[in-house]
């Protein structure tokens, strides 16, 4: 075999250099290549021998990757996968609803098939159930011991994604234990991950966390410092200098509202120049709610007795300030006041969303939906991952549902160019509705859309159909 291999190498070498290779032909082949076009005949034998007798081999030892782990949630039914893929691919031409769809599937107790969607290494937003896949795509080989708990000692043996999930769980059950691990290990993590660890302290934030938070005043990361300051502010510990609060105080005013029950109201009027408005906007980010209240000479409770009034961007900045630095009581009070005030647009409340618990999100979604004038965008922000839970009756009472029939008319009746635009708007509206509705509601609205003239096979109904088919035991 070695002789043949050497002969074949000489033959190919001759042809590569542009010489006849007949002199290198093995003796056993000579009779077969005699006659016209011997070179071509030799190529036949050489090619065949090379492909059959010799096999390619990798240059290094092949090590297969670990198998992609299975997740704790079952994969969606095979029959739903084509629809799921269509929904994701349709997003290429419009605003992405990928995260919402992934959240909806997880909210229904299912995971997606890895051939249809897999998180990228940077997809930290993915629901916790996908943590093993995140580890896998990041090629983190650390595997937690099956029956071990996360402790300071075992911390290093857990992958980052699994660690985060375990800490979130631990923080809910035993805040002190989670704090102990975070306090011991945060310094060894890079800034981005330190910030992610700090986020976990937001769950059941209490005075017990203050000492650790104060220790972060000199953290290498400004983002971590800012987060620690905000959390301390929520605990009523004012860390920033009072002169900023005093400067902000000069840019707002306190008013009174109510004839009988006089309440304090923060008024944020437009300032003379855009530079002044921008400065005030920055100050809302730098000053805590407690510091502003103190500068204004009122308590936090008084400052939030009535919904703020004034320019929209000023109110949004104030809401952001409360969301970042306000105590739980303060942000709850602001939410209640603004929801009770029909004149306050619910879109101003979007900044509060990250502070809401799952329970609060579910409870708030119908109230927000009833007044959502932004095509349910605010409702989606408030609902967060708590998708697919709104009953049809609630949806039908919303402004967004009211405008659906108008969208149907426009999509049907417009001129071609306009119709394309209206069709896209109708598709987006149906998607937003589909993300929020419960399974029964999704089926009902899909049927209604068909009765309004949409083809039952129209891809605009895909998300409604997917929602309707993603039934859970708790949501039959």
């Amino acid at each position, binding site marked *: 075999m070695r002789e043949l291999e050497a002969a074949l190498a000489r033959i190919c070498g001759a042809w590569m250099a542009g010489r006849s290779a007949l002199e290198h032909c093995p003796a056993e082949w000579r009779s077969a290549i005699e006659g016209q076009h011997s070179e071509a005949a030799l190529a036949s034998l050489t090619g065949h021998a090379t492909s059959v007798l010799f096999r390619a081999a990798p240059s290094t030892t092949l090590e297969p*990757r670990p198998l992609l782990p299975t997740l704790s949630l079952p994969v969606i039914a095979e029959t739903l996968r084509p629809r799921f893929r269509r929904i994701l691919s349709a997003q290429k031409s419009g605003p992405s609803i990928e995260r919402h769809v992934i959240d909806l599937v997880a909210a229904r107790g299912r995971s997606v098939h890895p051939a249809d969607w897999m998180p990228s290494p940077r997809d930290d937003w993915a629901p916790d159930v996908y943590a093993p896949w995140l580890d896998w795509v990041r090629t983190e080989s650390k595997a937690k011991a099956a029956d071990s708990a996360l402790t300071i000692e075992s911390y290093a043996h857990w992958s980052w994604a699994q660690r985060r999930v375990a800490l979130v769980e631990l923080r809910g059950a035993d805040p002190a234990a989670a704090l102990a691990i975070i306090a011991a290990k945060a310094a060894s993590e890079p800034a981005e991950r330190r910030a992610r660890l700090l986020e976990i302290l937001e769950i059941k934030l209490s005075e017990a966390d203050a000492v650790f938070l104060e220790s972060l005043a000199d953290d290498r990361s400004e983002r971590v410092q800012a987060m620690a300051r905000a959390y301390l502010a929520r605990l009523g510990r004012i860390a920033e200098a009072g002169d900023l609060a005093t400067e902000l105080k000069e840019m707002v005013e306190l008013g009174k509202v109510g004839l009988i029950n006089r309440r304090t109201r923060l008024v944020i009027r437009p300032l003379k120049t855009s530079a002044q408005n921008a400065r005030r906007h920055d100050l809302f980010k730098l000053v805590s709610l407690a510091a502003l209240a103190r500068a204004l000479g009122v308590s936090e409770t008084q400052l939030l007795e009535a919904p703020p009034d004034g320019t929209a961007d000023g109110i949004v900045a104030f809401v952001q300030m409360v969301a970042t630095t306000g105590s739980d009581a303060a942000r709850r009070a602001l939410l209640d006041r603004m929801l009770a005030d029909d004149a306050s647009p619910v879109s101003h409340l979007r900044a509060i969303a990250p502070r809401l618990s799952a329970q609060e999100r579910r409870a708030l979604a119908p109230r927000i939906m009833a007044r959502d004038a932004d095509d349910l965008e605010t409702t989606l922000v408030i609902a967060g991952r708590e998708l697919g839970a709104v009953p049809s009756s609630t949806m039908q009472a919303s402004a967004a549902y009211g405008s659906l029939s108008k969208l149907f008319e426009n999509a049907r009746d417009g001129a071609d160019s306009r119709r394309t635009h209206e069709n896209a708007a109708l598709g987006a509206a149906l998607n937003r509705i589909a993300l929020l509705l419960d399974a029964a509601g999704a089926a009902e609205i899909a049927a209604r859309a068909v009765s309004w003239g949409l083809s039952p096979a129209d891809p605009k109904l895909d998300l409604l159909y997917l929602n309707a088919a993603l039934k859970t035991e708790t949501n039959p």
Partner: protein
Amino acid sequence: MGLTRGAIEAMAPDQSALTAASALLKPAKWPVRARSGHLIWGECQGSGANPYRVVADTDEQGSKCTCPSRKFPCKHAIALMWLFVEDGATFQNADIPAWVNDWMGRRRKGAPAPSGAAGEAKSLGTAREAIADAPPDPKAEARKRAASEKRALDTRRSVRTAAEDLDGWISDQLRTGLSGFLNEAGERCRRIAARLVDAKAGALASRVDEMPSRLLVLPAEQRIDGAVAEFGKLALLTRAWRAAPDDPDLRREVIGSETREEVLANAGSPRLESLFEVLGERTLTRRDGLVSQATWLMNLGAGAQRFALLLDFFPASAGRRSGAFVPGERFIAELAFYPAHLPLRAVIVRRDQSIDASNRWSDSWPDAAADPLAELAEQALAAPWRTETPVLLPAGRICAEASGRAWWRSHDGIVVPLRNAPSALALGASIERAAGVWEGARLSLIAARTNWGRLGFDA
């Protein structure tokens, strides 16, 4: 707006489209006809290997078809609507299949008749008469047959000369240096391909014309071996054809293929009735301006005939043609294979509706040889000129070297180089079986059964 005969006449692009559609009104040409609400769909077995899938909206009168026709609506869509208007009861109520759903976002709405046809009177009745009024003419048929036989003789003579030329050309390329050939492969192959076309060796010409594409996708260090293999296979093919010019397999490789009708009429065409799974589809735009659409099927039933290939060609200028099947789809069908040393290319004789795999047949893929390369070597003895051979791989994993080069590795340690970089999931899946096409030096995976279910590999 309901669908009527008048509406069909109005939407038809011209009278010839109606006439062509009337030839498709035989129910036998439509193994599938179904409806849901105002949607109707069907599958029409045309002249190609792959059936055409057609969907139409009887309300909006929009339609879509997988055929490459530039007429809209095409004859298949017109025929489907025509059948529905004549006898809607023959359309069974059914759930909307996934492929109809897929197309709903892409279909074209019903359009007014094109301006060029505005003055033309179009009639379904006239179209039907045009078909019915074509009486057979025995004398004309005999003349046609005689002319055809003469053409065949002429063709054989000119192809024999061209095959000699090709062998000489191959020897020249080898003697003057393969490095130079690889630098100018496109131009040189185009020139000899043009001579082969003139000599009526159309299939050989296409193969030579496509050779540079096959070589250039190889890693640089493999191109010399690749060129030797390509030249060797060509020389084998011409030599084999000269020895047996009437061999249908060799004739197909050198001159051209039989038509679907010829395959069906040929008593020597092997036939197989079984459960088939659609492995996948490969669409390739060739340098000669044709697009080849290859649908790979795998026989899940008994028998040694494991794979089948439905192959169609259409002009690239006709636009993109949609796939006839959904990968993973299964159906019971009778196939007629083109007679060959290793039968592979086939046409569908008869096909049942797609079936649920769990009903009657085993859900698993058939067993694979432990050493697929040894099996390929055996097959290479029967048809050594073949450039693509399907193969079933046993259980294993897909691995990647640090350089990114991918390999399939069996549990027994047999390795096969892969053509394309695998997806992340393919690298993390346990492969129970995999099907691919061996291209002489590398394997192009089509589909696999894994611990995550079926995986498709895009070409």
